């Protein structure tokens, strides 16, 4: 059908304009009530950041739905547009995860309540059929609660504190890390401690160079809570590893080392740098080891794996799982199962 395009194509404009005139009336009413605030864009840096977030949300950029005052302050401190965008993206992703988890929880809750109702009705039926007494089960164990497991693990950890092989985490990299990296480090340390606690033959973990008012300590306390932190079966000290152990027993594990760790030595004290490095400063832990004249070693990754992508430095929890396994089994093949699969394409076929 032949239409006149000019007349036809601008209909949306008149729609929007008419909407505006309606809005205007409402706005005038509202402004009469509130006294017409003119705060748009002006004011404090935090206010400005808030406007920015609102506008970007409207424009369909990836920003969180809710922002706290603290986050706005962080945002206001960022100077470039791209850093602002990245930070907001990070918040948005975090918020997304949180929401998804909450939804999942909600779903599980409703499912469980439905099941419970079903069971109850089922039970009533059964009771009606039976004599009306709760059934006695014949078991030889009381229910094994998590609490019981905790006690067992605690016992083992105490033993490890007495007789276990020491494993040192060097906490002297606070100057090298940003806030985000520090948070990641602490997460990895917590996971490390968890894996260690569950192992059959735990290490005696040492957190060395832990300054009482340093960033590590602050973040650890924030995450563990004072009480749990005080009861943790690890040796946390401000002392250096070289002060605690004989120098010749120490081996600093770093991916930059030229030496390969061929066999796991049960008499050595291995040191791992508690650091997450998202920037480009390479060789920080090797420099540390050189300064203290310690021997160094790296995992035999190239010797066993077809390496494909990714850096050779592994996360702290991967490190302890590898060390635990090689300590228990003596097999690098088993231990290096914990290297992320995306980084390599299987093991070399060994000629040995």
């Amino acid at each position, binding site marked *: *059908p032949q*239409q006149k*395009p000019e007349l*036809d*194509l*601008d*209909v*949306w*404009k008149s*729609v*929007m*304009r008419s*909407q*505006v005139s309606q*809005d*205007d009336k409402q706005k005038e009413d509202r402004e009469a009530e509130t006294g017409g605030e003119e705060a*748009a*864009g*002006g004011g404090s840096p935090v206010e*400005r950041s808030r*406007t*920015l977030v*609102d*506008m*970007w949300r*409207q*424009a*369909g*950029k990836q920003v969180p739905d809710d922002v706290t005052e603290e986050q706005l302050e962080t945002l206001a401190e960022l*100077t470039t*547009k791209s850093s*602002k965008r990245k930070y907001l993206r990070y918040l948005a992703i975090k918020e997304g995860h949180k929401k998804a988890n909450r939804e999942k929880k909600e779903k599980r809750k409703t499912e469980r309540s439905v099941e419970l109702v079903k069971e109850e009705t089922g039970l009533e039926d059964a009771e009606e059929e039976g004599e009306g007494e709760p059934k006695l089960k014949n078991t030889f164990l009381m229910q094994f609660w998590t609490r019981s497991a905790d006690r067992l693990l605690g016992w083992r950890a105490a033993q490890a504190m007495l007789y276990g092989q020491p494993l040192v985490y060097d906490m002297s990299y606070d100057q090298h890390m940003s806030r985000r990296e520090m948070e990641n480090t602490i997460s990895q340390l917590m996971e490390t401690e968890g894996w260690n606690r569950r192992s059959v033959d735990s290490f005696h973990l040492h957190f060395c160079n832990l300054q009482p008012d340093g960033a590590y300590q602050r973040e650890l306390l924030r995450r563990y809570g004072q009480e749990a932190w005080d009861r943790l079966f690890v040796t946390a000290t401000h002392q250096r590893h070289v002060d605690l152990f004989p120098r010749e027993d120490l081996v600093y594990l770093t991916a930059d080392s*030229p030496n390969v760790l061929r066999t796991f030595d049960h008499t050595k004290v291995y040191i791992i740098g508690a650091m997450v490095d998202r920037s480009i400063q390479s*060789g*920080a832990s*090797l*420099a*540390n080891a*050189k*300064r203290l004249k310690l021997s160094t070693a790296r995992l035999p990754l190239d010797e066993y794996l077809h390496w494909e992508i990714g850096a050779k430095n592994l996360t702290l929890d991967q490190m302890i799982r590898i060390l635990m396994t090689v300590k228990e089994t003596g097999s690098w093949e088993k231990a290096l199962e914990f290297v992320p699969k995306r980084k390599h394409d299987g093991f070399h076929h060994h000629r040995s």
Partner: protein
Amino acid sequence: ERTSFPKSVFAAGNARRTAEILKKRSGSGQDQVNTGSQKVRTALIAEIPDRVLSTSEWRDLKSRISRPERFELRMIEGMLSADTDISIAKSLLNYVAAENKTLPYELLLKYLALCVSGGHHSEVSDVYDIMKSCYKTLDTGAYSLFVKGLSQTERWREALIILEDLKKVIAPSSRNYGDAVTGAVLHGDRETAWSLYGELMDQGLTPNQETWRCLFESGVSQRAHTDQLLAILNYMRENQIYPEEKLSRSIKAWFESLPDENWRGTFTSVDPRGVCQSCGTQLESIQLTDDEYVQLKHRVMEDVIEGQDVFNKTTPEELESFKSFVKKRPAFDVIIDGLNVANITPKCVKSETLLAVVSELQGLNILVLGRKHMQHPSRNWNRHDMNQIKQKAHCFFTENISEDDPFLLYAALHSGNHCNFVSRDLMRDHKACLPDSATRRLFFKWQRGHQLVLNNFIPGKKIRFQRTSVYDTVVQNSGRTWHVPYDENGGERSTYEVPQRWLCLCNDV
């Protein structure tokens, strides 16, 4: 004589050529790249109708489509990437307005982007009125688009107000300022243009070449603002920025149009001795001044070798022993990066290659830098060769885990201005250790003048180094002449390369 030297690694386009050769040699299929994103894009474009649709037709189309989520937005995004006629986009807006009685902000924004990129000025103007009345504040993207769009129209002064609004939220980019400058120039308000440009410079932003181009074009046949335009050329000189061909043409036109002066511009090249082919002027030498030299030496010692932590690259003991080693010997003429040179041909025994290069440079005071493992005889490191090398040159072997390049740089800088070094390494990582861009440029200038690059090595054949430059590739002025290196259209230049083409401007009084 000229053909006997291969082109320098720092000549524009060299990196691209090398990459192409390597790609050909490895035989990788180029067509496999890009297909992924291409597919997505074509799929998007395939959905876009090629004519104006009525509301009911749009409704039909949407109902036929398999994924109706975000249909309108995906559609307009596709239009933006396919550069579709805006009447089709308008019909889409009509449909959405008819369906929802309003338009979402995001859709309007995308439509605005389409209008701006298509240069539909009156439409931009309309959208501005609508969006301004519908929303209290706009997002930064919309502000930027309006600055760009409105500066092309009669309402260009409003673009300046928008720029002010933008400042309340975020620091405007050099492109934002550039668009505003373009608007002012377009409407003949040079004063405003220059004050905006001044503001841009005060913010520490690097102006776009487009901005400069329109400033030069606005200055044609004018006596005003001459100093400011010359200041732009000096800014380019100080920051080692090279104009693109388009801008260089505007610069030429401006010079030639200057009243009462008789400038003549020629596009030309410079011969290896540093003489302009057009006017015969000798270009500036690449040698650093004494002050610059001292400063660079200092910075390399402090930032590249010691850095935040001496232990990163070496140890204090090693550094001390190296310093006294250098001090005890007369100034070197040439420093060889032993491992880099030895590894040029993978097929040869490494020590043989190194010996050949050292023998070639006989008669000069040579320093060979290496690592300790080279002294242990092995298949690659022949004891006899190494002994000969030690006879013909001074040698310093660092620890196996130390870095040798920083020592090379220090020894070369310590020996003085005449000292060259042999390495194929482009030293980009060491350049990156330097704290500020001014020192980095100084380093690059020194590197271009002092690095001897060995392209390939065939045993028994004569060794040829790539020529080091004797003149500096930078915007330069000598009273009656200006010489401006520029980037040719289509010539892709890596960051560590310098242009080979020049604009020569002479003032024949």
